[in-house]
């Protein structure tokens, strides 16, 4: 998948000027896939794995550069006051986090976004939009510049408004125990980082479509209540997939098919085989022909693609709290080296008083 920016305006459906009822020979409707390629989701937020990695490295490198400069300036400005141990502590402890570490922290907070949004009883689509907004924000910004904790509530607040599910700021703050000023303060930076692109195609709609189509194609061969179970499980699976990088590499229906594949491989394979190679007694020869004409990809290729996507979805994005805490601590000390020194002094002081009392830094 390459991110081609297609700027050509779409025009079709043009009525021919002669009065014949025949469609012109070059008549062709745009496929859903064509339309998706014009969406902002595809234009701005679809990448190859290499592009995505590059993007993360770049965002991190930029932030690290400015953090390191600040730290150098801090040491230079306080040169006369700092002793060797203090300088060493800064060098050792105030180390900017790497792109990989940033990702770990973001993954953890993306799960938090999901949890809070679900606790607010938001519709599935809005939970999905919240997660999506949050993760995209950190494709443009480093955790060095914007503390993830501070962005969480703003993404949910904006996702609600963007998806037509308005919750007033006062009531939102009451429910989330958030700070009104902080939530509103980040609304603009968030919107800007999202490149003002708010329209999301989530894989739930394709799920509904496949769900109906599987029942049509495998009519009489699938149990309805079983399909209901599969549907619910896929829905959960899709929400989890939104926490992975699959969303940047694959289109929503591809993610849906992968989720279906995880839940019932035999059923999904059978459905796709029938879909591609026909043999459906209910559809006329004409219909079969149109189906194969519309399909621009071979079954083998699609299966490979689904399997690759499935692998990414199944990879865990779990970050341990301990690990997240240590990353967050470094983030904090990079920005506040003076607190690192205070801590050092305090520890030395405490050690003199009672050697065991080592207070834990509270970072969250």
């Amino acid at each position, binding site marked *: 998948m390459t991110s081609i920016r297609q700027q050509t305006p779409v025009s079709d459906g043009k009525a021919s000027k002669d009065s014949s009822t025949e469609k012109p020979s070059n008549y062709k409707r745009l496929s859903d896939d064509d339309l998706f390629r014009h969406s902002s989701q595809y234009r701005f937020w679809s990448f190859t794995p290499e592009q995505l990695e590059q993007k993360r490295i770049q965002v991190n490198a930029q932030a690290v550069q400015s953090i390191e400069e600040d730290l150098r300036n801090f040491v230079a400005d306080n040169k006369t006051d700092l002793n060797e141990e203090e300088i060493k502590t800064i060098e050792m402890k105030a180390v900017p986090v790497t792109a990989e570490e940033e990702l770990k922290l973001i993954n953890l907070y993306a799960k938090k976004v999901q949890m809070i949004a679900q606790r607010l009883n938001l519709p599935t689509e809005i939970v999905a939009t919240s997660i999506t907004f949050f993760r995209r924000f950190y494709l443009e910004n480093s955790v060095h510049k914007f503390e993830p904790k501070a962005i969480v509530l703003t993404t949910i607040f904006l996702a609600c408004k*963007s998806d037509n599910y*308005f919750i007033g700021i006062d009531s939102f703050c009451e429910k989330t125990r958030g700070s009104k000023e902080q939530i509103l303060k980040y609304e603009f930076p968030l919107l800007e980082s999202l490149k003002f692109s708010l329209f999301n195609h989530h894989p739930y709609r394709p799920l509904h479509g496949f769900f109906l189509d599987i029942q049509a194609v495998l009519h009489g061969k699938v149990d309805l209540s079983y399909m209901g179970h599969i549907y619910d499980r896929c829905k959960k699976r899709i929400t989890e997939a939104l926490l992975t990088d699959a969303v940047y590499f694959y289109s929503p229906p591809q993610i849906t098919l992968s989720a279906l594949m995880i839940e019932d491989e035999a059923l999904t394979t059978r459905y796709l085989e029938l879909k591609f190679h026909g043999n459906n007694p209910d559809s006329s020869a004409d219909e079969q022909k149109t189906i194969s004409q519309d399909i621009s990809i071979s079954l083998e290729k699609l299966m490979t693609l689904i399997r690759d996507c499935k692998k990414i979805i199944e990879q865990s994005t779990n970050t341990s709290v301990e690990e997240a805490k240590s990353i967050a601590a470094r983030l904090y000390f990079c920005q506040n080296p003076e607190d690192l020194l205070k801590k050092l002094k305090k520890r030395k002081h405490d050690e003199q008083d009672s050697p065991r009392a080592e207070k834990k830094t509270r970072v969250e």
Partner: protein
Amino acid sequence: MSQPEYTKEKKVGEGTYAVVYLGTKQSTGRKIAVKEIKTSEFKDGLDMSAIREVKYLQEIQHENVIELVDIFLAYDNLNLVLEFLPSDLEKVIKDKSILFTPADIKSWMLMTLRGVHHCHRNFILHRDLKPNNLLISPDGQIKVADFGLARTFPSAQEILTSNVVTRWYRAPELLFGAKHYTSAVDIWSTGVIFAELMLRIPYLPGQTDVDQIEVTFRALGTPTDKDWPDVSFFPAYNKLQIYPPPSREELRRRFIAASENALNFMCGMLTMNPQKRWNAVQCLESDYFKEAPAPSDPSTIQIS
């Protein structure tokens, strides 16, 4: 921002949530309109209408939908840079010094429907189509504008507000207060606009919401369960006066210049039952567009 890329030269309008200026894009000299969203007035952060406008315009690039050229933040305000569109269909309809022909109307309908179709195939409902929101570019292209009420196609369980669309252009399902409706509401509005273009006066000008029901059904007949199953289950239905649908002859008399295909086209869009109402593709493929006269070349239509 030392040298602003966009200048605001003249204030041309002020709405509840925005002020519109005419200006120039400095680097190219292109004329543009800047819609400045008044953010400070909203305690809940960015206004929903502004968010909708950004969300949908950012998604759509089509010759017949207004172009969102750029977005920028300045002095705590959100600014939408839009293409400059000097006129709109309402102005043209009202300006009695402008003469337009059936071929011109056909051209406008074609452009409008292409824009509407593009919204619909991107799963977007406009929900406020009216002559005033169909802007006209200097080269005569119709541009669907004002996405402040737009929304994504709802899923089956979602409950919608029926309080959308400017009264005269409101589809019967909305008049009945339907909690679920489809892109068919935009097609109804388009049908009413078509009628208005032919009559050159508003076709269904209800004075109040209640009167709108009266005016609509008097002109087009009260829907019954026969052609719209279960329509009588709407709470507002029992209070209705039952009017018969107009005969073909009556329609011909009302729309003197309309061909049979033009009347079919209009009736397709103004079908009471939203499920039977034509969709954008059916409209675009109708015989009305295939028969003479051919739609005028947009750049030749007089608009001022």
